[in-house]
């Protein structure tokens, strides 16, 4: 027997023995699992974004089947996946509104001032706790990209000193909203395109001092827009997405704070 034969037999033998061991292990050590868990997991998008509040898609599938979790928690899957799962499990279909994230700050580096020169790690929470953040506005986006790094879909871009969500790529998992130290990111219905992109609760003059695109709390939008489409809380207005908005262009054109904008994409 030459060397080649010996080695072929050796390797082949090891392979056979291992295969046998695995087969035996599968037979005797396997854990019984509800087969529906696998089916549901297959239906989920498999992005493992964690937006549902569970540790990945498999965990959510298990929670749906064994823990009776709601079917509408999967933002990336949306109504389609929820419907399929409902069908698979024989449950009633649920209503899912597709949501996307929006950064409620429009103060980019051309319109918002910085108070000091920050020197430190590129992390928004860290920057925010170093001297209170370098942005003149204590509510505005710092632009150090923690949300972009948290995004499993690569849907957030940092440009001109500010974060922006690319709507077409957003899967609505909401991870960005949880990491933003200033809580600037809100999940809104994907069909909405007009937003008040400011989160400053400061009075008008204070806002004007630090940003050219800030809400001064004049409440003009609540008067010009459809009834209830905009609400005001103190010196900050916000879009109320439960009410329809038809007169968007007028509001956008006349907002003295230049903070109401329409999505480009």
């Amino acid at each position, binding site marked *: 027997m030459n060397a080649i034969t010996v080695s072929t037999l050796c390797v082949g033998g090891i392979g056979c023995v291992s295969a046998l061991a695995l087969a035996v292990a599968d037979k005797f050590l396997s854990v019984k699992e509800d087969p529906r868990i696998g089916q549901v997991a297959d239906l989920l998008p498999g992005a493992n974004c964690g937006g549902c509040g569970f540790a990945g898609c498999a965990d959510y599938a298990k929670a749906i089947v064994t823990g009776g979790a709601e079917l509408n928690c999967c933002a990336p899957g949306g109504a389609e996946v929820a419907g399929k799962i409902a069908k698979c499990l024989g449950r009633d279909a649920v209503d899912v509104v597709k949501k996307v994230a929006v950064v409620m700050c429009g103060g980019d580096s051309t319109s918002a001032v910085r108070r000091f020169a920050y020197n430190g790690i590129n992390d928004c929470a860290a920057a925010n706790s170093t001297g*209170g953040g370098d942005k003149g506005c204590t509510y505005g986006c710092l632009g150090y990209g923690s949300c972009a790094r948290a995004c499993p879909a690569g849907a957030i871009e940092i440009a001109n000193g500010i974060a922006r969500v690319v709507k077409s790529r957003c899967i609505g998992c909401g991870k960005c909203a949880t990491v933003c130290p200033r809580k600037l990111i809100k999940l809104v219905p994907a069909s909405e395109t007009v937003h008040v992109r400011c989160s400053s609760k400061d009075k008008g003059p204070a806002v004007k001092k630090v940003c050219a695109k800030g809400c001064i709390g004049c409440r003009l939008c609540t008067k010009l827009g459809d009834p209830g489409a905009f609400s005001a809380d103190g010196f900050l207005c916000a879009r109320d997405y439960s009410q329809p908005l038809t007169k968007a262009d007028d509001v956008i054109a006349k907002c003295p704070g230049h903070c109401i904008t329409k999505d480009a994409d």
Partner: protein
Amino acid sequence: MKIINSPFHFKGGIHPQYHKDLGDREAIRELPLPAKLTVPMSMHLGAPAKPVVKVGDIVKAGQLIAEAGGFISAPVHAPAAGRVKSIDQTVTAPGRSCQAIVIETSPEQEWELMPPIPDWGSADPKTLLERIGAAGVVGMGGAGFPTKVKLSPPPNKPIDTIILNGAECEPYLTGDNRMMVEHADHIAVGAQIMRRILGAEKLRVAIEDNKPDAIEAMAKAFEGVDGDVAVVRLHTVYPQGSEKHQIYAVTGREVPRGGLPMDAGCVVENVSTVYAIYDAVVNGRPLTRRVIEVTGEGVAHPANLMAPFGVSYAEMIEACGGYVGKPAKLISGGPMMGFAQANGDIPCGKTTGGILVLPPREVSNFTSQACISCGRCVDACPMRLIPSELSQLIEAEDIDGAANISLMDCVECGCCAWVCPAHRPLVQHFRRGKAIVNAKRAAERAKQQEAAKK
């Protein structure tokens, strides 16, 4: 009285350039009273104080203007007589905002003092403790922990050693040194008041050996004081003023991980705080002012100023001749642990150790270079941690991994970042990691409490 050399030396630490000659010969002088004082309600650790005056009220100097907001809190007194102009928000040195009482000072200064306790040597310790609490005394070394709480350890933690912290290991800072040189007798009285409250047998004054004047003055002041009293001459090494390391240097005991000085039978109090204790008890004067040194190569005439709380950094710097050239960094406290400020519009408070102005040549940038594993941080860390590995784990978002190798033991002294040849912002990484761990732990606690309720 005896002067002893420090019997123990902790491992690690660094030898920075001290720059103390800028201000350590300048006698403490009184700052002329400014027209307006913005007195923050949060000049201590714990709950902010609650204002008890209204806008428009006329207040006397030393009058209570805000009461303690909880058990771990401290009251605030008017630093000067005048009229309450407004109650507004202000930003304090660490970058957090809090309420502040703005007082327009009047030309005539009338004081409202508490009744002095001249017979403190025979007074009830409880009375003394109450007085210290009522006078709003907090730790003036930096953390601002309410002194009354510190001086009331639980009965199962007996205190046998009181250490007066006169190390002042931060470069540039000279205020404590001047206090010891000029007010040694008063500090000695304050120390004896503390001893009466705690019933500790040993009294130690810990001073680094680069302050020979202070060592001499304190030794003289304690002459004739009975009991086991000594001045300990410490090696000049940063962070010798860190409580844990000072306790080790003086007693050879290590404060257990996650523990407090009282777990090692010690209470450490900064010398300026001890002076405040004396002032509160013997003179009945609440804590409304402190020595703040304005120093650094970026200031025209560095000085040690006795300043009322609420005066702004800008006014303090103006009183010292203003800036020389363009300042690069304005720091509240020392260069190792102080807080950099965006502008001088910040009010001084009980924990303002100093105001430091650095010119561009004294400032170095942090970078995002990779760690080259030189191990200098490992040698420098006085807590014996592995800063390089910790920072890499935190950068990789493995916060639990970092916590497993003792991230939470970091005291943020900055030795690691000072030696780092790659100029990595190590302390900032640790602060970030610790904040995440603390948030996680708080969330877990809240969850458990909720579960317990059910």
